[in-house]
């Protein structure tokens, strides 16, 4: 069974490469399908496969940088970016990532990095799962009550109005986003998401996006573009700083990136054919499975942890692949039928 293992030159251990491909592919499929990064499953997944925690984080963050390059190239641009806001936020993001990474290195010296990061992840994933299930519950309730949700379901959270009143110089005007505020507001927000990104090895979009909308007051379309821009910067800087600290495994990054690039196409196309809201439940279940596997790993059941996390993500990505293949086959069949009909 030696051929199933690939030698990681820096961490100096043999890793199950099909596991790496599977994680990369699933993160691509799931991220592409649900429209939010799936990096939350990479760090725990790599750790469960046998990477030391610091390596898992560094490798995850580098793979995010690569993946954001893939999507940037695919669409040739980020979309609507307020570049001024983006550049101001880079300051906070980079300092934040550095702080997060330093914290990891400090915990590693103390010899407690594995446990601490795993427990923070458990809390973090529990939070995501709660959001997903709560959101689903709310949507179901509304459907039953017959309320059609408008395009803007923001329920008028206007925290940013209060935050815009803080007038600590320098004040800045962001033209594309259309507001004026103290430069410290975006810097502090990006710092907080940066710390989390550097500490957990995630892109941070899950937090940065809502923060941009609710705390900073960005219009949603600008927030999407600016967030993508920020994810790329944070991934590249994260990859750099974790390489400087010697906690990155390039071979694993490339293997995962290949899987992720293919998976992302399948996931994105599948959104076209997916019906209903129920699939979100599946996403919530994947998050929960990941959380359970981290707890298993923490208590020393590495093999069962690997089975749980790899099993859960393969089932969900398989399901999405089936949606995609069925839909695509149907579309191509329809197209052919149409052509045949027009020829007659």
């Amino acid at each position: 069974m030696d051929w199933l293992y690939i030698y990681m030159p820096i961490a100096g251990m043999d890793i199950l490469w099909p596991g790496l491909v599977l994680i990369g592919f699933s993160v691509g499929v799931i991220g592409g399908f649900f429209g939010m990064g799936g990096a939350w499953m990479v760090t725990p997944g790599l750790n469960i496969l046998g990477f030391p925690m610091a390596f898992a984080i560094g490798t995850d963050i580098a793979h995010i940088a690569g993946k954001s390059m893939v999507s940037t190239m695919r669409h040739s641009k980020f979309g609507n970016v307020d570049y001024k806001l983006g550049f101001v936020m880079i300051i906070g993001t980079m300092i934040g990532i550095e702080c997060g990474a330093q914290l990891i290195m400090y915990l590693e010296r103390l010899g407690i990095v594995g446990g601490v990061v795993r427990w923070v992840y458990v809390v973090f994933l529990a939070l995501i799962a709660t959001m997903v299930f709560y959101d689903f519950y709310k949507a179901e309730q509304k459907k039953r009550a017959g309320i059609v949700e408008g395009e803007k379901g923001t329920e008028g959270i206007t925290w940013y109005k209060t935050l815009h009143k803080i007038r600590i110089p320098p004040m800045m005007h962001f033209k594309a986003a259309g507001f004026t505020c103290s430069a410290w507001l975006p810097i502090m927000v990006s710092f907080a998401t940066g710390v989390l990104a550097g500490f957990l090895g995630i892109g941070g979009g899950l937090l940065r996006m809502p923060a941009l909308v609710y705390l900073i007051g960005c219009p949603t379309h600008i927030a999407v573009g600016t967030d993508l821009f920020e994810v790329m910067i944070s991934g590249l800087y994260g990859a750099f700083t974790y390489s400087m600290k010697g906690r990155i495994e390039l071979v694993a990054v490339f293997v995962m990136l290949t899987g992720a690039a293919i998976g992302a196409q399948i996931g994105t196309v599948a959104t076209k054919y997916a019906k209903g809201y129920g699939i979100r439940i599946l996403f919530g279940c994947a998050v929960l499975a990941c959380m359970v596997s981290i707890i298993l790993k923490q208590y020393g059941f590495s093999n069962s942890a690997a089975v749980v996390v790899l099993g859960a993500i393969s089932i969900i990505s398989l399901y999405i692949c089936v949606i995609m293949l069925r839909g695509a086959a149907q579309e191509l069949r329809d197209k052919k039928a149409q052509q045949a009909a027009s020829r007659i």
Partner: protein
Amino acid sequence: MKRSLLGFFLALTAAFFMTATALAADVAQGKVLSMDTATNILTIEEFDTHKSADHPYGRPTGVTADYKIEKQTLVGIKPQPGDVVRIAFKTQGTERIAVRIMNVSKQDLRKK
């Protein structure tokens, strides 16, 4: 945008291929026999690369070698006699100068 970005990265890659004249370092692994703090010389008995359950860090070869620790040498957990260390070193004449020293037995990464 696409083209200019690609061109930029290609140029950067080419530049690094040309400038990257990395000075290769050799690697040795073995058990620390002595660590002289006065002369900063680390003596190890080298192990080979055949790992097994009995010899998780390789089998002893009986060959001993001295390594000079300089100011810029990166040393992890302080090597003490009996520890297994992995050393990246450069050879200057007959002298072996350590670049990085990893204390393999005291920082088992598998447990992290």
